[in-house]
């Protein structure tokens, strides 16, 4: 049965983040934003689809998107 990636949590390294805003811009779901200290934060976690694009593009390697693999829900209508 197909497994689906789900967000566990965003681990954003505040020490490493330089606030470039790239993750904010590339996130397809507009999950991230820069806080007042110009550090990335996951402001809308609930929208995250765990695509990990932010993690893979962050030039400061400051984001890790922790994911869990859950079974594709088949309870819905087929």
């Amino acid at each position, binding site marked *: 049965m197909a497994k689906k990636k789900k967000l566990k949590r965003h681990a954003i390294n505040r*020490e*490493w*983040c*330089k*606030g*470039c*805003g*790239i993750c*904010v*811009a*590339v996130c397809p779901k507009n999950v991230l934003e820069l806080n007042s200290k110009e550090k990335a934060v996951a402001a809308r976690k609930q929208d995250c689809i765990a695509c990990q*694009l932010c993690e*893979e*593009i*962050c*030039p*400061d*390697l*400051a984001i*890790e998107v922790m994911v869990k693999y859950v079974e594709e829900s088949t309870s819905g209508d087929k």
Partner: protein
Amino acid sequence: MDVKYYLRERFFPHMWCAGCGHGIVLNSLVRAVDLLGLKKRDIVMVSGIGCSSRISGYVDFHSLHTLHGRALAFATGVKLSKPSLNVIVPMGDGDALAIGGNHFIHAARRNINITALVMNNRTYGMTGGQFSPLSGVGTKATTAPYSNIDREFDTVELATGAGATFVARTTVYHVKQLQSLIKKAISHDGFSVLEVLSQCPTYFGRKNRKGSAVDMLNSFKDGTVPVGSKKKQENPELIERGIFVEKQLPEYCDAYAELVERATAK
């Protein structure tokens, strides 16, 4: 993925400016290495001098940070003397193609199994924004205040003309493709060249009013198309991404091993 396994954490945050594309190359590189399942002790990163060249200091492989433009020459010594090593050479556009141009074409000619990653930000970042041989006509730089008259190389054409057996290009915007091309370039048995368009918001961006790092990334998205795309015919300004050359020819270290057989058979 635990990127930190591959990093020398104590040097982070790294020295690159906020939004510098070189960090994205680093990010993709460690992922590609992870995907390939290479052992850290089997990789040697050999780099020259430049912002881009500092990448070798951040990864927990063997690392050899050499002289401006000379990385491929050092790498040739490393590889030929111990062919079992994976030798990866991250280079700046100036490093690879200005001062280092000769080693670049000769490594291609020899087809020695080294992976050259040309991190093309169209400027000399480390020295503060002079034009490079990839800046192109009409760009501005501290040494081109009246706009540049120097034609640019096409890295792909140059590498091809010099005989490289794997030639590809992508950008730091296209991280999936970047990871996959790094993997292919490393796996290729022969000299491989991967040009990666990378943004320098601090110098190239500022001097040429290219906006923020995000704006520059978007221009990579909008300004490039996959190899062979029709859009390119309509708009020749577009830059192609993908694999341009991929062929098998005798690799230099292999040829040397055969030479030794010939010589010892005598």
